[in-house]
């Protein structure tokens, strides 16, 4: 479904992504793990078109989206819930979801919103509240709900568990899994490698702009290097 080949990304002089290639198959949950600054967020930003790779290709459903503008990429069914939530803090919960529906028809918006509210009843109760006054966990739910509004085929989540209490982390991962079961392919970036690997099919380990390891989630969970570096074992 998604195939990244030879991605090279620079921040002015910094060579942040150094020839990365990987793929995500339809229906999978794939995780990128890696230390701070390894380049995980940069990879997601490049896929969604906010950054650009100097080389290679990014094919999504068989089409090269390397040079496609970000607002067109969403229309093709690729949603990105970026690092740090990035919800619109001055807008209400409802308006944030409406923004998520931006590429979709207004006629089906209500129905879609109700589907999102099934996953996140908390958002329904607070649909009029200004997003900036939501708790961190609620904001994260809104960020995911907003991304789901566009009916993505592939959803990229950048550290959805960041800053959340353990119980809420479990909750968020449960929702990610439910979305996947409902037919959404997931590309996940996580610091919480244990949790992420437990729901993933496959994973890639990123080290300073390179892919150091790849394999099935089960293999990586029991891999000694991974255990030492990312699972705190």
């Amino acid at each position, binding site marked *: 479904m998604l195939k990244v080949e030879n991605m090279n990304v620079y921040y002015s002089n910094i060579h942040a992504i150094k020839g990365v290639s990987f793929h995500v198959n339809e229906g999978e949950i794939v995780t990128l793990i890696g230390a701070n600054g390894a380049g995980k967020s940069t990879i997601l930003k490049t896929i969604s*078109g906010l950054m650009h790779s100097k080389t290679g290709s990014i094919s999504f459903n068989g089409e090269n989206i390397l040079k496609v*503008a970000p*607002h067109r990429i969403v229309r093709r069914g690729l*949603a990105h819930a970026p690092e740090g939530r*990035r919800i619109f*803090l001055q*807008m209400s919960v409802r308006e944030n979801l*409406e923004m998520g529906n*931006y590429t979709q028809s207004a006629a089906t918006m209500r129905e879609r919103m109700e589907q999102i509210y099934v996953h996140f009843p908390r958002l329904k109760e607070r649909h009029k509240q200004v997003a900036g006054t939501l708790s961190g966990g609620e904001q994260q739910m809104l960020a995911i709900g907003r991304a789901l509004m566009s009916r993505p085929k592939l959803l990229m989540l950048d550290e959805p568990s960041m800053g959340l209490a353990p119980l809420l982390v479990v909750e968020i991962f449960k929702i990610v899994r439910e979305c996947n079961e409902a037919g959404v392919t997931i590309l996940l970036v996580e610091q919480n490698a244990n949790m992420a690997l437990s729901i993933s099919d496959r994973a890639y380990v990123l080290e300073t702009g390179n892919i150091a390891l790849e394999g099935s989630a089960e293999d990586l969970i029991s891999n000694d290097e991974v255990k030492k570096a990312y699972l705190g074992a």
Partner: protein
Amino acid sequence: MLFLSQLINGLQLGSIYALVALGYNMVYGIVKLLNFAHGDIIMVGAYIALFSLNYNHHPVVAALLTVGGCTLLAIVIEKTAYSPLRLAPRLSLLITAIGVSILLQNLAQFFFEARGRAFPADRLLPTGTVSIGDATVSYTSLLTIGISVASMIVLTFIVNKTKLGKAMRAVSEDTGAAQLMGVNVNVVITFTFAVGAALAGVGALMYGVRFPLITPTIGAMLGLKAFVAAVFGGIGSIPGAMIGGFMIGLLEVLVIHMGYSGWADGVVFMLLIIVLLVRPTGIMGRNLMEKV
């Protein structure tokens, strides 16, 4: 009732400033540009209205030509002068805006001559006065306030309820996140300039009625005053522009009424300095500058 007539006088002036200040704040909210050419767009609008009315166009036609002309001019400026600098440092953009301002003033001098031309206000709005209590108030004052407030209500509706208006707010808060929602930022930027300029067009008509002598440089002072109103209300804030505009208008009329008409402009700019020292974000200001 001197108080009432002065109040309406101040509100009339203030509503003009508010219309102009809105254009500053909307554009600033989206592209972080202080569009110093904004005042000169109003000058061009005033000339369009003047010529159209002198040509015996129906007032509605003249108004539509003015608003349409300002909108078109702003879109052309945005596409040719600002849009190529989207990734350039903000300072380059600011300098370009000043350049556009000077260009417009010089073009106006070239085509319309430097001498002042009388604005046929009586062909645009009915003359005459009404009495409210003991106060006599001109129709034009009331109509100016009414038309300005109506324009602001339409704007508020656009910004809060329409899809493009919501996209505008989203882009102004977080451009990257808005793009991830599928918003075409270029379209939103053009739309913002267009709406700001349409309000400037209304402002040009109201300015002509209030100060019926048009020269190529009227935009400069009007632009600066509206800029003070924008800063006073809170740069980037739409309600801030409205409140700031009305406050500056009332302040000016108050200073003049107290007999210090020579000081009116000075007091306005003194206010700018005080606001910048005491509360740089303005009265409605959020920390819009603090964006990552």
